[in-house]
């Protein structure tokens, strides 16, 4: 499998403290990758290393098939980013800031600035100095700048910060459009689970500087789906009974004693009764369910705190 970006055992140590430890993430072309983790987990540090602002203490980063080095300037040309709070030349207008960005990036497509401003609903404020912008407006201008030069890879650190619910929805739609229509790969970070859940194709859960899990939304959905855990003496016989007597077909034999049933319409009582009537005693039967939040808290270890 080839990835547009991958980090290989990436570690960053600063003043004797390991901010990021042995992190290996894998991002496929065109997907939206969500870095999820509590504040101080190491998301920004990881993003700073990907954008070459900070250099790794050990490990490496591969972007567009090349290993990132301090002199990988061509790679930066193909990336758009917004790390931490968006920084601007405050005395200049939003439009002037974007034009300046184009000059530094060497990007001279006509109407690019107007298009980017329109995408983020900033046309009316374009001529005003950035110092007069609200936090949400600055955030949108930061995103406009990041997408301005049509990058292949977009790195956005907490892009929904300071946005109202309408603004968040608008940004989510924009990211979907960029990903599906323009084939732009997006890596975004957030500490808000629902925000990542609604937008990402793959989630990397990071906590205390380490990657706890890297999982697609599809896989995550499978994991967190509620099911009935059934423990019997003979799974083959029990499986036959489930299918034949109860018409249950969505189940999985986990091992020689356990079956996981994903059809929740049948009561545990009824299953136990039918199995018992057919000489297949039930050792145990119970419903299990886990919300996405439970799962996240479990793997980050935050639940035990």
């Amino acid at each position, binding site marked *: 499998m080839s990835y547009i970006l991958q980090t290989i055992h990436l570690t960053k140590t*600063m003043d004797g403290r390991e901010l990021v430890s042995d992190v290996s993430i894998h991002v496929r072309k065109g997907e939206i990758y969500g870095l999820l983790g509590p504040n101080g987990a190491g998301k920004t540090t990881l993003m700073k290393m990907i*954008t*070459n*602002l*900070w*250099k790794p203490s050990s490990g490496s980063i591969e972007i567009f098939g090349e290993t990132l080095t*301090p*002199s990988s*300037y*061509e*790679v*930066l*040309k193909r990336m758009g*980013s917004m*790390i*931490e*709070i968006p*920084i*601007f*030349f405050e*005395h*200049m207008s939003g439009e002037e800031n974007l034009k*300046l960005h184009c*000059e*530094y*990036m*060497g990007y001279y497509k006509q109407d690019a600035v107007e298009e980017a401003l329109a995408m983020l609903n900033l046309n009316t404020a374009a001529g005003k100095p950035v110092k007069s912008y609200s936090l949400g407006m600055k955030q949108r201008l930061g995103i406009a700048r990041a997408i301005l030069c049509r990058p292949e890879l977009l790195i956005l650190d907490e892009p929904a910060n300071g946005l109202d619910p309408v603004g968040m929805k608008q940004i989510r739609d924009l990211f979907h459009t960029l990903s599906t229509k323009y084939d732009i790969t997006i890596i975004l970070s957030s500490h808000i689970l629902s925000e990542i859940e609604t937008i990402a194709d793959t989630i990397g859960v990071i906590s205390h500087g380490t990657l706890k899990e890297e999982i697609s939304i599809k896989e995550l959905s499978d994991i967190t789906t509620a099911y009935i855990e059934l423990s019997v003496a003979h799974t083959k016989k029990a499986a036959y009974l489930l299918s034949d007597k109860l018409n249950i077909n969505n189940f999985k034999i986990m091992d020689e004693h356990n079956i996981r049933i994903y059809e929740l319409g049948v009561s545990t009582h009824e299953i136990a009764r039918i199995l018992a009537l057919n000489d297949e005693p039930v050792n145990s039967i119970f419903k299990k369910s886990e919300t996405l939040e439970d799962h996240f808290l479990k793997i980050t270890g935050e639940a035990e705190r």
Partner: protein
Amino acid sequence: MIKLIKLEWKKNNINKYMIRALILAAALCLFLFGLTFFGMALDPDTGKLDAPPGYDIVSPFIEFLSNISYICFSGAMLATFIVSAYKNKTMTLMFSYPIKRQKILLAQMIAAWSFSFLALVLTKLFLYFSIQIGSRYMNSVFQLDYNLKSAEFYLHLLMNSAVMVSISFVALYIGLKMRSSKATIIASVILMFLTQGSIGDFSLVGNAVMYGALLAVSLLFVVLSLCRAETRDLM
């Protein structure tokens, strides 16, 4: 590189510095006119020139006033262009561009240096020409010890201005090390006293060896400010 320098001027609002340089030149000119033509340098009791021996000529005053002004001016400019850029994080933005960091820093240094140098040269020329023209219509209490038709005068003016403005790179390095714009400006003021001040009869003003050494040290500090820029983490 020229494009980068122009962009530095643009984003740092160079027009603001132009206005400041014009106000400074006008203020210096007014003060010098007061000294030279309107009796500010005369003893009120005797009506004679109140100046130490050897200071009955006008050029040391022009040089001193313009040099001290521009050592501080260029120090403040470098502080804004570079040190403040680290503090307000605009340097983080700059280093996210596909341009060598050393090239960005060098462009910032050249942008501040070239403006200060040009402004200092023009200010000095403006002062020398103003005094020269004024002396045609008013009596000067100082002797006019310079020749505007001499090539040597212009060469000396250019060299002296280049050294004075370059000294601020020492202040820049101190400011960068301490991550403080104030430290840059304070270092500029200390350098101003060091190069333009005197203790009794002892002064480093006009000491060619001293100026040469300062220029060499300034260039060394430019190199030190640039080295490791590519690999250093941007905090």
